[in-house]
């Protein structure tokens, strides 16, 4: 797995949301992507997953250039992502939600029975198997996040981008998500994790990317990044911003 961003820029009219970001992720790293609100993390995610097209710059994945390609093609290439505000298919059941990507498995159509088996395995791991007939709209916010994660795993992607997986989730479920992330990492997947939960980020990440006003201001192991003066200023320098450096309860 190799993801490479080369001077990626995204402008919306006069606003520059992403300003010449470059980095490379290889193998099965767990990379945390952090930054104050409005730093451009979600925009960057949308650029990588194909929902947005860069104004300039290149994005390469596994030797193929993917910037500007539509999301469903990028999903087929092996990049999966979740959304900050969960986007489960609300009028389908939990099981059906998990079946959608599998049934769309580009090229490689498994039988429905096989897919159901895989789906049930994932649901069991997420301790949601008892909810398989529930409509997604009836689940709690946290359960929906889990559902999105499960759906994501059905695609068996090489790179997973998790956008705020802990936000608004019950602590007990957070633990589950935390474990899930560790296990997925152990399976050899690369993960980009976006979160404001500093405790989790610092514990899980091997590497941190810090964005501020669309610019990448730090890229390195967590201990180093923590001491980076620019990073400190980015978080503490804003008046309205609360001190996000201390581990907060979710």
């Amino acid at each position, binding site marked *: 797995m190799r993801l490479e961003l080369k001077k990626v820029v995204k402008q919306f009219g006069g606003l520059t949301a992403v300003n010449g970001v470059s980095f490379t992720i290889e193998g099965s790293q767990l990379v945390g992507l952090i930054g104050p609100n409005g730093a451009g993390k979600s925009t960057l995610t949308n650029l990588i997953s194909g929902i947005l097209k860069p104004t300039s710059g290149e994005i390469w994945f596994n030797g193929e250039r993917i910037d500007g390609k*539509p999301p469903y093609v990028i999903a087929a290439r092996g990049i999966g*992502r979740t959304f900050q505000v969960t986007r489960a*298919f609300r009028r*389908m059941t939990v099981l059906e939600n998990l079946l*959608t990507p599998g*049934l*769309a498995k580009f090229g490689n159509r498994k039988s429905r029975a096989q897919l159901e088996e895989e789906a049930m395995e994932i649901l069991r791991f997420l301790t949601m198997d008892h909810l398989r007939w529930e409509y997604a709209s009836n689940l709690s916010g946290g359960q929906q996040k889990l559902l999105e994660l499960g759906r994501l795993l059905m695609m068996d992607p090489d790179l997973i981008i998790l956008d705020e997986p802990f936000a608004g989730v019950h602590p007990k479920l957070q633990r589950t998500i935390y474990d899930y992330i560790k296990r997925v990492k152990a399976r050899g997947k690369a993960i980009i994790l976006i979160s404001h939960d500093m405790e989790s980020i610092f514990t899980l990440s091997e590497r941190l990317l810090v964005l501020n006003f669309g610019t990448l201001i730090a890229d390195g192991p967590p201990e180093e990044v923590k001491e980076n003066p620019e990073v400190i200023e980015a978080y503490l320098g804003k008046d309205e911003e609360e001190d996000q450096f201390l581990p907060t309860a979710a």
Partner: protein
Amino acid sequence: MVATLLHFVPAQMWLITPEFILRLLAEGLLIGLIYSLMALGLTLIFSVLGIVSFSHGEFYMIGGYVVYLFLQKFQNSLPRALTGIGALLAAMLVTFAIGVVFERLFLQPMARGEVDRPNEYAILTTFGLAFFLQYLMLGLMGPFPKKARRFFDLPVFDAGLIQATKASLKIGNITLGAGRLIAGLIALLALLAMLYFMFKTWTGRALQATSQDRQAAAVVGINPMNMNTLAFGLGAMLAGLAGAVLVSVYSWVPWVGVIASSKSFVIIVLGGMGSIPGSLLGGLIIGVVESLGTGLFPDPVRAQAYRDVFGLVIFALVLLVKPTGLFGRKL
């Protein structure tokens, strides 16, 4: 004065027998099934593409003409049952094809974000298609009303309570036209097939996923552009099928789709825009309400003229209570 008042009193209450009501119900359901079929097509288009197709009625019209032309050409050379099936398939194919081609040429740019004002654009292009098709058929077929032969005649028999002539089936005192019986049955089969397709096949699932959350569907590997094309083609095909079964029941002229269009709009809003069960139920409700209203409205002079009003009254009442329609998604 008294005479006027009497008009508003059900003067012949004793005429309203249970059989009469049953007959009205049966007729309403039969026509309601076809309304549902058409509304399903329109709601499918709305739920996936997010636009209201103003050419829906014209696909209905084309479907009818295709059947008419097919039967004209082949009814003497092929056995009767085959010609019926062949005609239906031809109608479905032609309307599907026109829908797909139109969507690819005119609606894809809008879906790709290349159009400045997509809502207005959608209205204009589908309207344009409607006019084009109407006047194309006026030029090709002329204004004189056409009608296709029934797909098959009922066998003539008399079994006491149930009798049949070529043209109608009589159960007790309830007489139902053969053409509409066949139409209703085919519509029912088509509806069931569509339901199976939408809920039990992958493609149907993909359509539903796209209609529920376009971006989420995209990130799990579903191609929304292909879903758009499929939805529009299918929607057009369903309208075409509705026309195909009705061309042997109603006289066909190039503007026959105008009424069908406006009825479909009412039904999908009544049922909840984008909702499949909504369009099914809405169609049946409108069909039954119109039939009962026309049959039972106290003033016989105006009953038929008010036919559309009955449906619209129910429509207005439902929207007052539930603005998003019977099964509508919350806004």
